[in-house]
């Protein structure tokens, strides 16, 4: 039994004019501790898949099991708590909160976790910032950082709550190759050293080859 299981998942986007079949009958099984790349041409449904795995969006049909738990029909409050404890997100364009400094950005997920005191939050956030090598930028605003630094802050935010699964949608898409390599190295560390499960969408073959497994999509269908 994998930590992530998608069973016959389909996703249809309906707008007034068109219906888009973004995912069609997808079955994916990812084991605990695996580092999986998802590849495929633009518009083939990679982000859609990741959002469904991340419980940010619900499939039109099919089931999603995370860590053996069926997520279908969960209340918003239960889903939120589940995301908070099990999942960490890294986005292509970072999505840091501009009005908060680096430390506050990293502490944010802990705000929504019951029973974590302020001092404890700060301690945990400082520890992960240390890990991504940004202790010296704690009181900077996101706008004062380089793209690579922003993505490292985002990774710190994703792991501060110690989730088992990290979902990264083109984490190096907005970075030059040197900064991209730094970010990739960090992800590999998190996978190897902490045993975190990582699902990453990428367009970069070289990056994908370094991961445990590649899942390819074409037009909403899994091709390999």
């Amino acid at each position, binding site marked *: 039994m994998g930590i992530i299981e998608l069973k016959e998942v389909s996703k249809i986007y309906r707008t007034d004019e068109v219906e888009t079949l973004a995912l069609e009958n997808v079955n994916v099984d990812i084991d605990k501790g695996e580092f999986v790349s998802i590849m495929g041409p633009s518009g083939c449904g990679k982000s859609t898949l990741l*959002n469904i795995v*991340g419980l*940010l*969006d619900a499939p039109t049909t099919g089931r999603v099991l995370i860590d053996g738990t069926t997520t279908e029909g969960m209340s*918003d*409050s239960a889903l*939120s*708590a589940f*995301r*908070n*404890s099990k999942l960490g*997100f890294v*986005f292509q364009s970072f*999505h840091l*909160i*501009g*009005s*908060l400094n680096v430390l*506050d950005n990293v*502490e*944010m*997920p802990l*705000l*929504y*976790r019951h029973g974590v005191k*302020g001092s404890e*939050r700060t301690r945990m956030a400082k520890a992960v910032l240390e890990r991504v090598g940004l202790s010296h930028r704690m009181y900077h605003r996101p706008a004062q950082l380089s793209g690579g630094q922003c993505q490292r802050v985002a990774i710190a*935010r994703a792991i501060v*709550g110690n989730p088992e699964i990290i979902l990264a949608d083109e984490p190096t898409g907005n970075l030059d190759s040197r900064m991209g390599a730094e970010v990739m190295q960090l992800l590999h560390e998190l996978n190897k050293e902490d045993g975190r499960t990582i699902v990453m969408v990428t367009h970069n073959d070289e990056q994908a080859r370094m991961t445990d497994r590649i899942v390819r999509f074409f037009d909403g269908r899994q091709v390999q």
Partner: protein
Amino acid sequence: MREMMRQAMAQLRSQRMLTVVGITGTALSIFLIMVVVMLQQVKVAPYAPVSNRPRMLYAQYASIVVENTPYQSNGPMSYESAKELYGNLETAERSTIFASYLTVATMTVPGGRPVSADMLTTDGEFWNVYDFTFLSGKPYDQTAVDAAQHVAVIDESTARRLFGSTDAAGREFQLNHSPYTVAGVVRDVSTLAEECFAHVWVPLTTTPLINNTWNSYLMGSFSAVVLAKSSDDFAAIREECDRRMRAYNKTVKESNWQFISRGRPYTKEEVLVGQWANVEPDLKTYRRDRLIVFLILLIVPAINLSGMTESRMRQRREEIGVRRAFGCKRSTLLMQLFGENLMITVVAGLIGWALSVGFAYLFSTMLFLEGYSNTLTMPKVSLEMLVQPSTFAWALGFCFVLNLLSTGVPAWRASRTNIVNAINKK
């Protein structure tokens, strides 16, 4: 909680323009509505010399009827009736009887120019029920009233006009061509303390007003005010007044007239609501109507502010989506958004409230001038009258309502948006 406050502050700072506009808009609407509230509150608020207003019950008028006929009479009572109905109540601390309306008196000192002033005739208890500030001398007591002594209390301005000084106790003057002695001088009273306002007060036994009676000596020119030990005693006092009325009705049987209470004595608010002496004031309807007016006054700015909150939310869609992705519950998000907006409304409310006090103070004459008034003296207000806990409570209440109205829809929508769309600002 503290963390959320801190983050909210950071948020408000980062949307400085919207925050400033939001605060200004809210402050202005709170300001407007507070001026309306103050216009009403000042008439019931406690301040010297009406500090005891919350404990006072008013029998400004009385009503008499001939049973089983349409004949009725409503208006001020004779001194005799007022004493019988409201004097020396067991359940109350004390009560006072004084003229229902002001009369104009001409005052002169030898060699001086005549001064015309508003005069109120009162009993001795008047000075124990109302807390006038004496600058010199002291009030006249009931003994002086019973003996019809020609003594008077005058206000500061009148003392200056007559004697050129406020230290006028013991000085003599002519009042409507009768000699009077100044017993004491009090600080000027605002016309808004309408029931006890005057320039000169004299024992009610010393002017012809006491003989002004009709309906078999039952009705006349006087009102009564009952001072309760506490407002909790109001019901008991009304009961005793009813008993008194039944007893008095027996003694006046041969006149054919019978007193009916119409729920008197009234609270100050009921007095204000009651336009007519022959209809019992309907406090419920009045309060409901007033709430409707306030709601309308709030809804209009709330709709505008709601638009502002909406654009604030639009700018923050990405942030809201990210917070949701990392485990912020819908309910937590709603709380956070309401909390943030409440900070704006409370700050704005304080500003608006301060503005309204300042405005009312500076433009009191224009604001508080009554269409109908007993006197030609212009209304004056003091800060003591305006800065009332009750008006402040109103202002805070309005802030909460405004916050709910202006944040409700945008915040609810923000909490419902699809997380993926929010993150990608779609």
